[in-house]
């Protein structure tokens, strides 16, 4: 199966280095996960807006993206928890014939029809399953595997203390998508360890970055107050960096800290972290656009490599 890469809105428009890192690590020379860009994808759409304001619009906009995957015969690979939840939930809702037919009426106007992914049968009747939505973490764990990843690591990120942040919509609602045990997740930790680094335990590891559900846009102080709690316990755990599979959580960690005195823990995306371990030149990881400089971390890595 070749995956259709779903970059979302935030990565291309705010952290393009994550786009570079994702393509770098999935590349033939690296982890060799077959992917293809589908240029016509648009906003997933963002659940905090559309799922909050009008579920029908949300479902139709999501279905349009799903149909693009269906037409290209691809599963979707996402690098954002928001895209992941939105598309996954939509594909599931569209299993309900009523919802599907209502949505297809809307899609008809743009010449599209959602049926899902055709699955092999004895040929008499066609059968379909929902378009499959995968999070990058699943790919790294199930398609690649920590062992193979570890073999491919050329710059082990030894001595780094990593605070893993899973993010709400990777974990929950676990009814809709259960990648792993939502109360004891370990996949990102496993990936980080395969890259040679340590992960640290900290209070509130499973809680929200603070920004979700539109709260960051609506009441920034409230979002930042939650972030502060997490950052404090991450600081207490003496972490060098926060690693997350969600660019929206990353944005929140990266921007909220500017208004928090005395804290300065860089946050980087899992793609960038793995790319570093695979030997990517940090210059191409686009850390320039981060608010909280990643350079102290890189300097620590270089020192480690020299010493």
């Amino acid at each position: 199966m070749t995956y259709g890469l779903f970059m979302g809105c935030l990565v291309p428009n705010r952290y393009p280095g994550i786009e570079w890192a994702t393509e770098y690590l999935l590349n033939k020379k690296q982890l060799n996960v077959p992917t293809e860009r589908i240029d016509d994808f648009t906003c997933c759409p963002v659940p905090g807006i559309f799922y909050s304001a009008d579920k029908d619009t949300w479902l139709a906009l999501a279905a349009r993206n799903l149909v693009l995957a269906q037409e290209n015969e691809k599963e979707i690979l996402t690098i954002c928890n928001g895209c992941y939840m939105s598309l996954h939930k939509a594909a599931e809702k569209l299993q309900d014939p009523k919802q599907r037919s209502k949505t297809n009426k809307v899609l008809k106007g743009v010449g599209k029809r959602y049926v899902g992914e055709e699955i092999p049968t004895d040929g008499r009747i066609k059968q379909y399953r929902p378009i499959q939505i995968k999070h990058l973490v699943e790919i790294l764990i199930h398609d690649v595997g920590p062992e193979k990843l570890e073999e491919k690591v050329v710059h082990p990120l030894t001595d780094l203390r990593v605070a893993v942040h899973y993010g709400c919509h990777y974990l929950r609602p676990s009814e809709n998508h259960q990648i792993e045990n939502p109360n004891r997740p370990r996949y990102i930790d496993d990936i980080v360890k395969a890259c040679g680094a340590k992960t640290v335990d900290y209070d509130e590891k499973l809680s929200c970055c603070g920004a979700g559900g539109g709260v960051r846009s609506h009441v920034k102080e409230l979002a930042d107050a939650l972030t502060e709690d997490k950052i404090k316990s991450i600081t207490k755990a003496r972490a060098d960096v926060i690693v997350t599979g969600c660019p929206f959580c990353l944005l929140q960690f990266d921007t909220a800290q500017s208004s928090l005195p005395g804290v300065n823990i860089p946050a980087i995306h899992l793609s960038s972290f793995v790319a570093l371990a695979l030997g990517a030149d940090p210059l191409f990881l686009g850390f320039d656009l981060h608010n909280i400089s990643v350079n102290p971390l890189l300097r620590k890595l270089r020192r480690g490599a020299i010493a």
Partner: protein
Amino acid sequence: MTGETEQTFIGASRTTVVEEKVILDEEYDPGFAAEIVKYGGRDVKTCHQCGNCTGVCPYSLKTKYKTRNIIKMCQLGLKSLVLHTPWLCATCYRCYEHCHEDINAAEVMIALRHIAIREGNIPDFIVRVSKNVVKYGQSISPSREVEVLREQLELGPLPYARPKHAKNNTEIQHIIRATNYDELIHISARPEEDE
């Protein structure tokens, strides 16, 4: 009510709703719970008020709005007192994850958002981000700084600058008009129109 008595807070603003408070007729909407169910918050009716949701809710710890109390007020039909609360929800689904009765309080919040918007309480950010989607096919407006970096990284143009952008956006705009989303939040979703 004496100064000694600790007031039992049951939701909304501490000064307006305490257990001693008399609920006025105009604050009471008997069809409220049914309306919430209509927009997907079916669990509102079966909540037992154990309070686990409040205990795991990140914002309940930070504000005076507690998940359990909001649900209770929905059950009581106190619409005017809760319509501003659902925007203070990360939709992190911890309430749902930890509910023994499988009540999905986050979906109740989502339903409350639907109702609030239909009553005309439309937060600015909903309009702003929706306009971006209509205009760029992306929730985020492009930034020149990012485009310069994209060139250096040889990443190719942003979606809004790709050849097929016009066609894709026509589709987005069609969908938004077909579901009357443009009318719902008072934006224009027609191709040529400038705001």
